[in-house]
């Protein structure tokens, strides 16, 4: 497709990669946190709930700056991870981290709602039939919350595709490294004659977001149909 120049292609490909990793990386942790918030009572539960939702209410620039302080090469966690060979600052990995953090609350909310909708009595019934806690989760809880998990993941993916403020603050706007779709649009708009390229990227953004939404609707409908059907 020569409709897009190499620089634009690069931004689209990088955004897809970043969003995919942000979603996949956040999924297990998000599921765990959603389960804990939905089912367990423990001290500090409200605090955890607050921290999870923080990226949703904080200005993205603040989140990005906090990430830089924590995961930058001189930050406490960043320095430690650098020794292990994992660098976030000014790399695509950092863009994925920022996108993942920003998308996390949306993912957890969707999954938590679906877990709360599962009747714990069904899980009790599974336990009396010999299923251990883990097996109860795998054979009863997980299949029943699957629509919520998929919806949460797709929502997170769309959010990660569009993340801008935290990303540009944390990992800057380096073409080929950290220049995701929204950063590229922003960059094109800063130079004279860049509107054409920016518009193309805007169209791609809209297309990706719309297909994600439609896909999640389709999947959710299919699964709930399977559950109710004869």
């Amino acid at each position: 497709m020569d409709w897009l120049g190499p620089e634009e292609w690069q931004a689209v490909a990088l955004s897809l990669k970043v969003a995919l990793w942000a979603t996949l990386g956040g999924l297990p942790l998000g599921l765990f946190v959603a389960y804990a918030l939905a089912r367990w009572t423990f001290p500090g539960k409200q605090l955890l709930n607050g921290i999870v939702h923080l990226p949703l209410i904080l200005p993205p620039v603040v989140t990005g700056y906090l990430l830089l302080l924590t995961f930058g090469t001189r930050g406490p966690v960043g320095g430690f991870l650098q020794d292990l060979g994992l660098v976030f600052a000014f790399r695509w990995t950092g863009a994925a981290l920022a996108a993942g953090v920003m998308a996390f609350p949306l993912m957890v909310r969707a999954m938590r709602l679906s877990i709360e909708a599962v009747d714990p009595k069904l899980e009790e019934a599974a336990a009396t039939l010999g299923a251990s806690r883990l097996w109860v989760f795998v054979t009863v809880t997980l299949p029943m919350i699957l629509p919520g998990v998929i919806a949460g993941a797709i929502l997170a993916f769309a959010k990660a595709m569009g993340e801008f403020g935290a990303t540009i603050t944390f990992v800057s706007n380096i073409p080929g490294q950290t220049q995701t779709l929204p950063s590229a649009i922003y960059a094109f708009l800063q130079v004279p004659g860049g509107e054409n390229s920016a518009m193309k990227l805007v169209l791609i953004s809209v297309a990706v977001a719309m297909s994600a939404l439609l896909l999640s609707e389709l999947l959710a409908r299919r699964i709930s149909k399977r559950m109710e059907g004869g």
Partner: protein
Amino acid sequence: MLSVDVSHPMQGFDLNVAFEAPPGLTVLFGRSGSGKTTVINAVAGLLRAERARVAVNGQVLSDTDQALWQPPHKRRLGYVFQEGRLFPHLSVKQNLRFGQWFAPKDAPQEDMARVVEMLGIGDLLSRRPASLSGGEKQRVAIGRALLASPRLILADEPLAALDEARKAEILPYFERLRDETGVPILYVSHSPTEVARLATTLVALDEGRVVQQGPAIEVLGDPLFTPSGVRSVGAVIEARIAQHHDDSLSELEAGGIPLFLPHVGLDLGTPLRVRIAAQDVMLSLEKPTGISALNILEGRIDQVRSGEGPVAIVSLDTSAGRVLARVTRRSVEAMGLAPGLKVYAVVKTVSIAPQDVGG
């Protein structure tokens, strides 16, 4: 052999229940709020009672005195809940197999085909629970519990959510479960009908205590046993089908005495239980003649129990078994009813409710 000893603080009273039950079906009987569900959930391990000792056939599932507590999934149970609790995302067949996935490989396996045939659910196997009727759901739930190769089957008011017709549909399956599988069953109920039909052993609870326990026929024939009010009193007679008559009556034989009932759809010779509600029994000092009632049982009064109100419960021993009659205190005085007196109990054929008759 099931042995249970549970103590747990509850709202308004301390639950303290201990009983031993021989093989067969044991009914925990009592009003709602008497602690039945607490006991059965402590047996299942769904509730951690303050003190609990539970053993099935010598296997200790829980003994808090020795800090021993097995989680529910290690207890090898089959639990039939009031509301079925089938897994909505699985087909009927997958629901039935659920317990088998986790049963130990060396456990005695119930044969799927036999259970499906026994419960008459062959046509439902590929359906989802959402499309089943209440009675069908409960039959699948019974099958699912049975196929988990349980050491003990638990049932918490499994018929309470069903209408009368569905209850009558499910009761026989519990009778077959009791008679054909040999797995001990602990069954919670507040229905005298279910007790009369199903119970081998009866454990009656009130406010967290055992008020009476023993073989069901004996306990039900005790005029002092009125846990759910004097209206629901009724003794149970064990009989067998002797003959089906052309006029839609079935003749039963109990201890040499014929009993006539509205048609019972069972084969000749089949043993069955008939609950005779005390309020449907009339007493007479002489053998009545020229009356429409078909069943007249000669017996001797064993006990007369008068309460505060106008009513007395009279128990008499007949050769068919123990019969209870609910009469007025005025009649007791006028007729001079007293232990040792010979009387005739009169029972109208049509007064015996069909749900009170069965294996």
